[in-house]
């Protein structure tokens, strides 16, 4: 990821609130941003703390399964169609389903508008996302079909690929696709020399390392692992530990979101809801 240096002046004289407010201004100066002040991160989190996470299952009408996920200000929407007939036909595999993933960012999800359409980064993320989900999906149960996963990032503040994977996993379960486990994902990294969990945008832009991880929590199996930056062996081990623990927390939220969708229906009252009369 690009590391742009966003800076501001006279940071020693400014309190924590003002540090957070001025972070968006592109004022170039000599001094680097301090991401850790008095042992806390700019947004008040501890080093091993996730951003506030929100997960909702079944948010779209047409898709077979869907989910919406927020990791702080990063918002991802995932939809699943499948198993369904695969087009083009020549991609069909006789013994199993073909899993396809398309990760995409909406032009207005980022500060500098992103042109619509896949770029090299989206294509790579699509691949690693697919490989994060494939190990748990029982593809052999659906021979000669396709399972399509679509991820749209509607707002980006770092950690978009892990938010996307978390959403995709919930969408797959929502669609009733057979899997050995859910997959939960989060990122660890290093800022100001400290290993931290779940960096936000400003931390990721000026941070020293980024380690996205996806986990099948049942037996703590890692299905996505990437790294960029510089970490010593000890730092990496710590980052991995933070990420695995973080993934387990995300997993609990995924389960709760799926259960909530059906429990909410359970406590609904009589069918007085306005609804369409047919298909």
């Amino acid at each position: 990821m690009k590391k742009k240096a966003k800076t501001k002046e006279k940071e020693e004289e400014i309190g924590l609130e003002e540090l957070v407010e001025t972070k968006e201004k592109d004022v170039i100066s000599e001094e680097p941003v301090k991401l850790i002040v008095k042992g806390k991160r700019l947004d008040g989190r501890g080093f091993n703390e996730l951003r506030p996470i929100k997960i909702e299952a079944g948010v779209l009408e047409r898709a077979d399964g869907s989910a919406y996920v927020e990791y702080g200000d990063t918002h991802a929407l995932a939809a699943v169609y499948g198993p369904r007939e695969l087009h083009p036909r020549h991609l069909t595999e006789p013994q199993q389903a073909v899993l396809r993933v398309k990760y995409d960012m909406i032009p207005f999800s980022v500060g500098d508008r992103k042109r619509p359409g896949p770029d090299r980064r989206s294509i790579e993320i699509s691949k690693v996302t697919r490989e994060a989900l494939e190990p748990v999906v029982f593809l052999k149960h659906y021979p000669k079909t396709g399972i399509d996963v679509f991820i749209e990032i509607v707002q980006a503040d770092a950690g978009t690929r892990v938010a996307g994977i978390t959403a995709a996993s919930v969408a797959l379960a929502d669609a009733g696709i057979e899997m050995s486990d859910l997959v939960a994902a989060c990122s660890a990294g290093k800022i100001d020399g400290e290993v931290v969990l779940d960096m936000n945008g400003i931390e990721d832009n000026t941070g020293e390392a980024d380690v996205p991880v996806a986990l099948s929590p049942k037996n703590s199996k890692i299905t996505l692992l990437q790294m960029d930056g510089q970490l010593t062996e000890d730092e990496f081990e710590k980052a991995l530990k933070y990420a695995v623990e973080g993934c387990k927390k995300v997993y609990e939220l995924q389960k709760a979101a799926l259960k909530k969708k059906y429990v909410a229906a359970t406590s609904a009252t009589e069918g007085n809801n306005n609804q369409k009369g047919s298909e």
Partner: protein
Amino acid sequence: MTVQIVPQIERDSIYKLIESGKRLDGRNFDEYRKIELDIGVYKRAEGSARVKIGNTMVACGIKLGEAIPYPDSPDEGTLTTTAELVPMASPTFQPGPPDENAIELARVVDRGIREAKTIDLKKLCITPGEKVKSVFVDTYVLDHDGNFMDAAALGAIVALWNATMKDGEKLPVSKKPIANTFVKIANKILLDPSLEEERVMEARLTVTTDELGNIVAMQKAAAGFWTPEEVMECVRIALRKGKELRKLLK
């Protein structure tokens, strides 16, 4: 888009109902489904809106920047409208570059905004011939249950009115064009087609009007035809319904 076969008995049921003055979901012929508007929900956009008409959902965002002006309008800012029918919105949408439906959607939404002179593009000039402000209107259809045209057009205009520039100033917008889409089924005119109605429609017509009673854009679609009387009827309904929807921009 891939085509799904419409069962004959479904076509027949819809026709029979419409001939007897009813719609599948019980609406009146000139009634919109429930419209939900969330303004300013996409924080990275300089202006944004999420629109739901029934279950159809469209996300719209405005991105502002700087650009070199077009040679034939050296003192005007640039306005570009895009639309994407993303595959998650419907089993019939394929991944890939915008197809003719997405391109048509973008151009019709753009036409409404541009021809109504919604934005005073001259106010977006920085240095004539060299640098102007650019306005991007991006509309993403996320869930398709019929009539993404009106949802996208509504989202775009709401987002434009919501937009603020970097210096805190509002975008120089002064008009509120509204698009209303009709379909013809069994010789009757229906406003705001649901997905089922679109699948059996003979013809479609989108009419965009502004608050001064001007028609600023029109688009006929699908393989059937409209009579001049039917077109005028659509225009009359659009002028009336445009006023109603415009209230949502308050």
